[in-house]
């Protein structure tokens, strides 16, 4: 069987998810041997920018016309399109408060010239094209990437936890930051899969993996309000990595 052709791309993000791929140090050369990477600008100066791809891995959010055009072109040439990381899956940090007046912000940062820049409110990939698989995380977990490659090579789809960070946190028998220390931990409403990385270190979860599958946000907010947190600020904080209205 010929090796599947793969492209790895970045739209607007921080390159963190591509870096996680390069961080698979021990397995990198093995992975590279199993797939045929045709287009990976961050790692190679010899890329085929037009060939059909079996798998496209795309990091970052859509923040400009240029990003949107690039994403559509990737979609056209790919059988399977994978959204890599919370920016790609949910919009990520650049999408927070995306209702704000962008022209004003651009002008504020860059001066008048900013108004001429190609810039649009951050969108998750699936708001622009069809996405076949999302791997959330800011950045993605290395093991999730390896599992995805293994599954896709076998024609399967990998499954990732939909239960919240809290479930993993309890399994690790941590003291609850929210209940016992009154700290604003987003664990109850954030998708697990990170083994409760932050609460394990006594640091509240900031929600970097995006919303959990089936959580009751209103009741969570009500509970926090009872604990004395301000409703508006709560709402903003819960939307840091995934703005309102990005349904999957």
């Amino acid at each position, binding site marked *: 069987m010929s090796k599947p052709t793969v492209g790895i791309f*970045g*739209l*607007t*993000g*921080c*390159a*963190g*998810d*591509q*870096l*996680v791929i*390069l*961080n698979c*140090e*021990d397995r*990198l*050369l093995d992975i590279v041997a199993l797939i045929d*990477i045709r287009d*990976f*600008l*961050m*790692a*190679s*100066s*010899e*890329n085929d920018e037009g060939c059909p791809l079996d798998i496209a891995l795309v990091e970052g959010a859509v*923040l*400009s016309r*240029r*990003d949107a055009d690039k994403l559509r072109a990737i979609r056209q040439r790919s059988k399977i399109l994978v959204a890599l990381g919370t920016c790609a899956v949910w919009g*990520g*940090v*650049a999408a*927070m408060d995306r209702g704000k007046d*962008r022209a004003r*912000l*651009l*002008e*504020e*940062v*860059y*001066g008048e*010239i*900013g108004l*001429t*820049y190609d*810039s649009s409110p951050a969108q998750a990939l699936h708001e622009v094209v069809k996405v076949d698989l999302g791997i959330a995380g*800011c*950045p993605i977990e290395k093991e999730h990437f390896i599992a995805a490659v293994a599954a896709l090579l076998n024609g399967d789809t990998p499954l990732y936890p939909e239960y919240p960070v809290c479930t993993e946190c309890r399994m690790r028998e941590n003291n609850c930051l929210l209940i016992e220390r009154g700290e604003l931990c987003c664990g109850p409403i954030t998708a697990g899969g990170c083994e409760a*990385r*932050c609460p*394990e*270190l*006594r*640091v509240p979860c*900031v929600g970097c993996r995006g919303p959990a599958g089936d959580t009751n946000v209103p009741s969570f907010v009500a509970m926090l309000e009872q604990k004395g947190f301000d409703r508006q*600020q709560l709402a*903003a*904080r819960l939307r*840091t990595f995934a703005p309102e209205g990005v349904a999957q």
Partner: protein
Amino acid sequence: MTTIAIEHLARVEGHGGITVELEGDAVANVRFDVFEGARLLEPLIRGKRYDEVAPILSRICAICSVAHSLTSLKATESAFGVRVSPQTELLRELLYRGESIESHALHLFLLAVPDYLNYPSATALAADKPAAVLLGLRLKKLGNQIQEAIGGRAVHPVNAVPGGFGRVPTLDQLIALRGSLMQGRTDADAVIDLVASLPAADFCHSDTVYAALRSPNLDRYYGGDEVMVVSNRSRAIVRAADYRELTNEKAVPHSHAKHSTFGGNPFMVGALARLTVNPRRLTGRLAVAMKRLKLLLPADNPMDNNKAQALELIDDLDRALESIEQLLRAGLKDERPMPVHPRAGTGTAITEAPRGLLIHSYTYDDEGRVTAADVVTPTALNAASLELHLRRAVEQCAERDEAVISKRLQMIARAYDPCISCSVHLVRKR
């Protein structure tokens, strides 16, 4: 007019390109174009509480995420007058070393070396010369191990919080790191051997102004708050609070990165600048290695930044070991973060990210909410100097052969180790 355009600069972080316009034989215009979308994180964090700032702004850039997090914390702590413990300082310095090791190993072996040996990528290089790539991957992994143990994650650390660390690493973790670092040190000679064996990259000479953090004890990345700007003719000191002297930036139409100059001159930041500003780091093993690499300071060739990274890489291994020894000698304590009491005011922090000076400056209201934020990144600081060096390279290239010029330009741009995601984050208009 002829135009040489490198539309997508490969093997760098982020999206950028280079355009050169020639008028006959004369260089009319050189541009480092930045195509990265504007994420506008600085204005978006206005109104956020102080504990939200570092996790959001670390997302400016993955490869420098430790530097962004810790510079952010340092600025916030400075605004609130929080003094962290000596143990926290040591752990933060160690975390910086981890990032520097990872970043330099990635850049040198996976992104830059393939150029010198005429390969398009590290994977292609690995097919013929696996040892070089495996060496890079080993060191890169070691840097990540440090970041995981101290920062809680290799990319976007979670454990560093205002006032200290969520959880101090355990004794066992430090001892394991010490073991890995001692093992890693045995690779130091191989690093220098490899870099010394590369063909000379001798196609751009220019007087260069360098700027770096003046280290109180000559070898800190995180501590200190004075920048020294060194040129052939002069030296100047800029204090953190006066950082705007370094960033009289102007927005330019071709890129979302503004251009910085000091006294009208572009300046270079990064590994080469650090060694130039703090030459007393270069003793013992480093001095010997420097001779082998034929590096003379102050250098007039930006390609020497690769050599400087190789020297820092082997130095970082030693310094990281030293920090661990110091931590163990002092007796590791399971400290909680220092209490943080917000107050109105401004805090500015400067540190040395792997690619050079990084500045975060915030103003807070009395409840500890951000009212203004400024982030100045090494790649933004370097943009003007990079364009100058690209111009010199074209001027000094005897052949008017597009392929030759294009390859040289790409090598210079990569030697700067640009981080283009970073470069779009800029200071506010004034």
